[in-house]
């Protein structure tokens, strides 16, 4: 295993060295180094700044010019988010209740932990249901001829061309008047499927079509049902695409704002973006707490994305080369 992967990476290196397409050799190293620094500054710099801002006290944070590297590290914001205990504000402890001192933790901070839970709950369910719905649909469209195959495909793909913001008003009315599930996590789950299913079906169809049809046909001749063929032939081979789909659905759900803003009104169902957006326009919330909330929202998707980089990149670029 190790030797195999080593050999492969050696081959890759060899190929990569031979590649050397555009830049002349003179000054190449210096140029690449400075470009790398620029790249890091632009791609990672802003996130670094949010992180640094979240672990400084408010007094340090508002210094001019800003501290590039924090003087004093404090975890009080994260403590406030994860171990919220409402301190009673009395005459003696009135500093706590005064936003000007920078130690003030608004009561809204207690909403972040439930919002984190809601985000995870909705995201996990969307990821699972999305793959279940999309797998069967993509298999049927990619591998079975049936009346209405083209229209079904167009119907599924065209729904993605409609902006979310256009869905807001009617979805709100549908949820309120017909299903009566406004302000529940379930309303978010079912809504997000409308966003994720078309994209997932598209990715999976591309993937399934790259698998030789004879594989499935052989299983059919041996008497497998379509569901069995899907489970025992296409699912194992298509696992990379399935993993990518799970991640995309989770990240889409984690990221979504407009629909959640309209469909939820209390912390019973509000997700992280909704609670955080509330902070931004609350002038009593300290800058460092807003940034800490931002870190809480950024870490899970970024960690997932980096961990599963291979799957995500292959999923994102499925069919890209074909055009």
């Amino acid at each position, binding site marked *: 295993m190790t030797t195999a992967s080593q050999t492969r990476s050696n081959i890759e290196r060899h190929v990569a060295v031979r590649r050397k397409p555009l830049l002349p050799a003179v000054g190449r190293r210096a140029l690449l180094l400075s470009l790398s620094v620029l790249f890091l500054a632009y791609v990672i710099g802003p996130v670094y700044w949010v992180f640094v801002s979240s672990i400084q006290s408010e007094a340090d944070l508002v210094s001019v010019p800003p501290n590039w590297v924090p003087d004093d590290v404090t975890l009080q914001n994260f403590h406030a988010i994860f171990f919220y205990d409402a301190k009673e504000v009395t005459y003696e402890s009135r500093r706590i209740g005064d936003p000007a001192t920078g130690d003030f933790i608004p009561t809204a901070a207690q909403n972040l932990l439930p919002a984190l839970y809601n985000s995870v709950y909705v995201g996990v369910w969307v990821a699972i249901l999305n793959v279940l*719905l999309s797998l069967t649909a993509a298999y049927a469209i990619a591998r*079975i001829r049936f009346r209405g195959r083209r229209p079904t495909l167009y*119907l599924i793909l065209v729904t993605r061309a409609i902006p979310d913001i256009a869905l807001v*008003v009617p979805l709100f009315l549908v949820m309120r008047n017909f299903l009566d599930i406004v302000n529940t996590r379930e309303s978010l789950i079912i809504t997000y499927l409308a966003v994720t299913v078309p994209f997932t079906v598209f990715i999976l169809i591309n993937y399934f079509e790259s698998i030789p049809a004879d594989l499935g046909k052989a299983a059919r001749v041996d008497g497998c049902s379509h569901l069995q063929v899907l489970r025992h032939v296409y699912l194992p081979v298509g696992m990379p695409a399935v993993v990518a789909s799970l991640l995309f659905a989770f990240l889409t759900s984690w990221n979504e*704002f407009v629909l959640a803003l309209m469909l939820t009104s209390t912390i019973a169902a509000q997700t992280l973006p909704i609670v955080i957006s509330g902070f931004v326009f609350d002038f009593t919330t300290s800058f460092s707490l807003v940034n800490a909330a931002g870190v809480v929202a950024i870490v899970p998707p970024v960690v997932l994305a980096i961990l599963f980089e291979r799957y995500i990149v292959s999923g994102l670029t499925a069919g890209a080369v074909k055009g």
Partner: protein
Amino acid sequence: MTSSIARPASRFRLSYDSGSAIFLVAPAVLVLGLVAVYPIGYSFYNSLFDLNLARPHRVPFVWFDNYAKLFHDPQFWIAVRRTTVYTLVTVIGTALLALGVALFLNEAFRGRRILAALLLVPWATPSIVNGLMWKWIYDPTYGLLNGLLLTLGIIEKYQVWLGDPNLTIFLIAQAAIWKQMPLAAILLLVTMKSIPDDLYRAAKVDGATVLQRFWHITLPALKPGFMLVFVYETMISIRHFDLFAIMTQGGPGDASFTISWQIYIESFRSLKFGMGSALSFVLALATLILSYLFIRLLSRKL
């Protein structure tokens, strides 16, 4: 499962089996029908009524009055202009920056893999956090941008960035570009990797310069990648709402008043759901027409 007997290999590539197929497709179609197709129909239906939640008991049917009113509303045309500028800047900015990044990451050097992986950080950052992050960087009193430019001696005193109506739409577009550039760069990079090395070697033998090789080999080969980037980024950018909601709320004045923001204002501030629906439908239609044109263009060129 419906009774379906596998047919012997026919002249068709795929076997014909309507019963099973409908059974397999049904769940996805039902869910999409409920949360995508039906709402769109409902939206169109509502757009024909003067539906105002502030006045729920009188809902006159007005035919296409909402649309007519819209096209005579100067605010709508301002929104169209802002949306166009924003979309153009975002898409072109994303494509150019992504091209640069892809060319850079296509070079062979130590650490290239790590840098490519880090591209996923902006991609995975939620747009709300992206908005508050750049709002904080642009902050007029404590922001990083002011601190950086002052330290470098580029500005002499702190500037009010987002508060400047001439700059605000470009600054929001910049935040969008930061998040969208990685996907575009990855797409272009994959396309670049599929260019055979022989082409470059042959061109080199023939004495082509770096620029000539870029112009005559790399750029034409990137065409499909670019088309994909343009289609996708346009569809995404034209409907952006999150950044505007977090960073400027349509302001200052109407400097960042886009169509998405107008839908929000009409529906949820003025409670004119009929008008909001009409506006939503115009945006949906514009998006559909644009994607149709792009796809036509795409399939003709390739």
